[in-house]
């Protein structure tokens, strides 16, 4: 049968290209979160993820300050065993009078309080993540590890009251009530995970 070898060939080609695509996708996804290990600290970066995008950027461009909560976690041995984690709050603002792209300023709120100014959006995000490194003292180079980065913009202040502003002296506004009930609980959270790795696998960028 002359058609069978062709079909088999196409089947293998499709399978292999699917595998390649899957590997490529996984590689791309894992590259969203980049880890480096130096001076016994695990450093996080995510150059392809823009956590200012969307509603936070609208608020920033409107001269408002936007607080971000950033959490980094390192799991060891098992994926649900937290070895160490860190949480910090960063207040970002955008200078509306600045003519260049270096209009962003960041204040790290938790002690030690730090400030960085005249940054581009990318640099401001990178600076925030650079403050979130984790101490790896006590981990062996071959221990299986997992890492997670979570970033969330804090919600702007909301109306008080049980039903928000839907109840007034002129009646209960069903439109406001629907709007109130439909509001998301909080700003969307960006979570990036790094697949299983060991410290030995990370590029040897240990400092001197």
């Amino acid at each position, binding site marked *: 049968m002359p058609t069978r070898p062709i079909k088999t060939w196409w089947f293998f080609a499709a399978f292999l290209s699917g595998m390649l695509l899957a590997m490529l996708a996984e590689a791309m996804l894992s590259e969203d979160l980049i880890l480096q290990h130096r001076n016994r600290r695990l450093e996080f970066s995510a150059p392809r993820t823009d956590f200012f995008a969307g509603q936070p950027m609208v608020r920033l461009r409107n001269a*408002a300050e936007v607080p971000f909560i950033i959490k980094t976690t390192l799991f060891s041995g098992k994926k649900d065993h937290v070895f160490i984690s860190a949480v910090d709050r960063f207040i970002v603002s955008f200078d509306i009078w600045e003519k260049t792209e270096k209009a962003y*300023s960041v204040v790290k709120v938790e002690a030690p309080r730090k400030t960085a100014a005249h940054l581009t959006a990318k640099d401001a995000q990178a600076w925030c993540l650079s403050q979130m490194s984790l101490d790896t003292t006590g981990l062996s180079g071959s221990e299986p590890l997992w890492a997670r980065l979570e970033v969330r913009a804090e919600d702007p202040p909301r109306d008080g009251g049980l039903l928000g*502003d839907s109840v007034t002296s*002129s*009646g209960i506004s069903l439109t406001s009530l629907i709007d109130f009930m439909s509001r998301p609980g909080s700003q969307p959270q960006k979570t990036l995970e790094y697949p299983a790795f060991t410290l030995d696998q990370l590029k040897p960028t240990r400092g001197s």
Partner: protein
Amino acid sequence: MKWAFLCTLAAGLPLLGGAADEALAEPAPTNVNARYIIESVNVLGSESKALSKSLRAELRQVVGANLDSTRLEKLASRIKNELRVARVKVHVTKGTAPDHVLVNFEVAKKPVDLKVAKFLYDSKQGWSGEASATTRVAGNAFTLGLASDDDAMLERYTGIRARFERDSLGTDRLGMSFEFEDFHEMWNQATVSQDPSGIYRSRQTFEPEARVVLIQPLELDFGFRFARFQPSTLGATTESSNAVVSTLRYHQRWGSGEDVQDQELEGSFSVDAAMRLLQTDADYTRQTAEAHYKFRRDRSRVEVSFMAGRTLGQAPLFDRFVLGNASMLRGWSKFDLDPLGGSNVVYGSADYSYRYYQVFYDTGAVWDRPQDRDQKQSVGAGFKKEGFQLAVAFPLGGPRAMPVFYAGMNF
């Protein structure tokens, strides 16, 4: 000389050290724009005069101050609460002078607003409710509502209410409205037995009105009310009650809900004159004076209300004064007081509430002839939160102190 220099240095060192500590104690602002000065503040999409004096004063205070986005968000929230609008957005742009910014509060009204204006359960009268939908197009508001109310008047009226309103006619000092109502009536047996010829099956009302702002906060509403009603008596023809209506209104507010204390005073005097000139069947004049004063400090609130009215001539039942419902002389039944309503009324009320708890005292009289005037009193207590209310009221001095329960909102 050397000693003098060392002494001066020693004396100065603690000062230098203190200054440095103070600088460290006060952290720099977290918003890079905090160094910019606010050049002007505008409220767009609404009349700023609708805001309370204290809020307007605070908006003025912001001009010339450094930008504080948290403060601006709080002000936006206050504007939203006072104007009762869907959203107030803060918009900050570069100013005309370097290092200055312009602040605009953009008021967004809901394109369509569905509202339950009233909802009430009265243990004596049963259910009452009113709902409406309002849409706004180019400064015009169109409202269509449904109502079934056995509380406000002598009759239970059920039907539709449509309203067109424009706040500004070339100037903010002039507005207009048209309101149309079409109701079918149901009557309590006490009213039917006392005046079977006075009751009607249906009623349509058309009310064109203009509103003029005389001097803030004094307004004058004037217009006409054309009412047609179909008497229940077999073979009776449709009757008309067409009147010139006018109301002088005063509304002033000091402070707002955000302040430690706030006060609000509303007063009105209205005259409705049904005249032969307007092809009316019954010739009468109705005058009503009302006043409401509210005072709040922290969680305590006091409300005092007063109403007095008199009618010269014979008004139809829908235009007669009623006491003994969920808002006036609570605890009494309007049918026990006067099943036909009265042509004269005097009423006063005092409410005190702390947090959700409320106590009240009502007193008043409704009468036709001076010898029929009989002052009644009632007391009550309940819970009130965000328009929702649950209350029980007791008539005082009546033959039976049967309490009346009220539950619902905005009654």
